[in-house]
């Protein structure tokens, strides 16, 4: 179902719940994986994904109908991820590296990476990026979102996003290379 059709149904109180259910079904996997790659842990990703859709529900009436629903939901998910990670650091008074170490430990325990050393090193390298640069990398590399859409989501210029992605790739390649040499 097209976004405009979902939004039109949502505007009608009689079909609002049906429309929202369809919206969740349409975007749940994109939101979940976007969040999951940032927080690594499934339970955290599950909580955040639900929170994202709660915010969508609460604010959809105010959503400008001429804007892209896809990028709007992505922006909410992105902000939720950044808020979650920063509050995690504040709550436990942990320096950045310790939260990174916690995420790395969860990554090591992830069965999806078992037996694939290169992929594991790649994921560890991605985790070492600052949160915002990691978001940019994930959106470009995994989700194949265009720079223009990313600019809409993050509120950053296309040029800055291109530079951020370019530097992220260089850092990742350097880290994986050093890790491979160490082993």
């Amino acid at each position, binding site marked *: 179902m097209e976004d405009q059709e979902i939004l039109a149904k949502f505007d009608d109180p009689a079909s609002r*719940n049906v429309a929202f259910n369809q919206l969740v079904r349409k975007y749940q996997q994109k939101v979940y994986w976007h969040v999951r790659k940032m927080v690594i842990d499934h339970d955290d990703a599950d909580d955040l994904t639900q929170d994202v859709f*709660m915010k969508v529900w*609460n604010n959809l009436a105010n959503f400008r109908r001429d804007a892209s629903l896809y990028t709007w939901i992505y922006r909410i998910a992105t902000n939720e991820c950044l808020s979650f990670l920063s509050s995690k650091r504040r709550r436990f008074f942990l320096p950045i590296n310790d939260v990174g170490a916690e995420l790395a430990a969860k*990554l090591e325990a992830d069965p999806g*990476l078992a037996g694939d050393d290169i992929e594991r090193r790649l*994921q560890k390298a991605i985790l070492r990026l600052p949160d915002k640069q990691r978001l940019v990398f994930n959106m470009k590399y*995994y989700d194949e979102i265009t720079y223009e859409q990313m600019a809409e989501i993050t509120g950053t210029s296309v040029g800055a996003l291109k530079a951020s992605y370019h530097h992220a790739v260089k850092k990742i390649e350097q880290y994986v290379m050093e890790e491979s*040499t160490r082993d």
Partner: protein
Amino acid sequence: MNTPFRLDDHKRRSQPLASPPDRYFDQLPSRVMARVQTTPDTGLAGTWGWLRHLSAPVRTALASAVVLGGFATSFWLTQPAAPVASSATALAAVPQAEMVQYLLASDQRVTLSDLAEFSNTPPDLSDAYLQASAAEVQDALDSQPSEDPYY
């Protein structure tokens, strides 16, 4: 020797992490809908529902105006109703008749030196309030013991 790694040469996995539990995406919509249905109304829909129709800058301006108005009102309410007069001004506003009545009725004794210092006393004050002749007043004063000896 370093082994070069190029991201473009690496086979990309769209979902590198482990998949969520079975049927997770089948159940997630109903869990979200359950949370949505149990969310209490924030109250905006009723009395304050009209706020939703305002743009964000207008809402911000309105909130700022309300806060500033609150400060201004509380400042105004905490100010005294009228400026406090000085003691001399306040005393001048008291009628002379009431002042003399107060001095006569109170337990404070007026001494001779007090009277001597009261240079602005009108000459007919004793006639108006004592209802006695000068001789009767003099006799009454002479019969009182003086606490203030003259030197």
